């Protein structure tokens, strides 16, 4: 018997595929930017290099949708309930 993935599974797979492509594209863009930066060090005012940096805008913009997970948030640190007394200092809105 032939089985077909459910619609939700197909949608999920498609989303994962898109997400993987985005991550790859972003990595390429960042690598390209780093390379350009290095080249620009040798050719300080070479505008073709500056233009190359700008050409990655569309890809980078896609990375700023706030939808992808990001694990680069350090180890978990937990505040504890105060045991009493007054505070040493305060954190106000900055």
């Amino acid at each position, binding site marked *: 018997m032939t089985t077909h993935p459910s619609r939700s599974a197909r949608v999920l797979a498609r989303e994962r595929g898109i997400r993987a492509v985005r991550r790859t594209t972003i990595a390429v*863009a960042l690598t390209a*930017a*780093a390379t*350009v*930066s*290095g080249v*620009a*060090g040798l050719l*300080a*005012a070479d505008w073709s290099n*500056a233009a190359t*940096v*700008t050409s*990655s*805008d569309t890809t*980078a*913009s896609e*990375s*700023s*949708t*706030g*939808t*992808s*997970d*990001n694990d*680069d*948030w*350090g*180890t*978990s*640190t*937990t*505040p*504890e*309930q*105060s*045991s*009493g*007394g*007054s*505070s*040493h*200092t*305060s*954190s*106000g*809105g*900055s």
Partner: protein
Amino acid sequence: MNTEGAAVGRRSFAAIGTINHVLSAQADRVEAAAVIVRQQLAELDATCSRFRADSELSALARGREVAISPLLTELLAAGIRTARRTNGLVDPTVGAAMRRLGYDDDLATIRVRPARSEPLDYQPAPGFWRIALDQSAHRVMIPYGVEVDLGASAKAWAADRAARTCHEQLGGGFLVNLGGDLAVAGRPPQGGWQVSVDDATELDRDDWPIVTVRSGGLATSSTAVRTWRHGDRELHHIIDPHTGDVADPWWRAVTVVAETAELANAAATAAVVLGPEAAHWLARRRLPARLVSQAGLPVYVGEWPEDVSVRSRAAGSLGDQSRTAQLRASA
């Protein structure tokens, strides 16, 4: 029992447009620590203030790669790191948007000048990826038209650096609080550092929740503190990079604890920009947080403890109950 002890030393001073506090678990080291922090903040101001025409950042040539100081390299790297971590929710290229909205000087100056009323010009931030930084060579290329504002990351990064330097040079435990961005280094006083959270409500100081922090960083971002008027609108200093306008003030304040102040501040500011999705976003990153709605009521994320304040402890009730009663009384 409060184990705050008499040994904790404290110095406070104004710098970088805010009030800063240096605390030492060993009182006899606080003076030396304050000297270190003052010196570092003076360097910070001279390096990246956007309100000073003579700061290194303001004077940077645009459109070509130029050599920069190691300190500006670190500060730009922190700004770009923050933008990448938050997927562009917090972006250092909001400088022009800030200026267009009128935040072009210290707030004390802005608030005393006549309120402006001309139509506002909203433009999305150019995007952090336009800053080409070579961290190892200390060189950067910022294109024409890109105005960099490191306000969303520099203060927290500086708090981490200052606390770490005090610990490394003087030994012992230190807490550095730069306008609400707190970093801790070394061994805390017995019972930990007691930090009250001013969440910009009308409540009395005795109703502010107090948490114990022993390591890492804590930061609060608010839509109700650094504010000014433009015509009929009250504006605040947290910009949504995607619109170029101030973020919708869904939350009055967001406080986050993380491994460093840089991380805590990045998350708190991103949460303000995200609005209603913020609690879920923070939970997915396992960041304990406390968000306060415009009505003044808290939402807890992760392992953030239930509110305990001086008043609630005296009344033998949970902070929420005391807080709700106070809010009703002041409404």
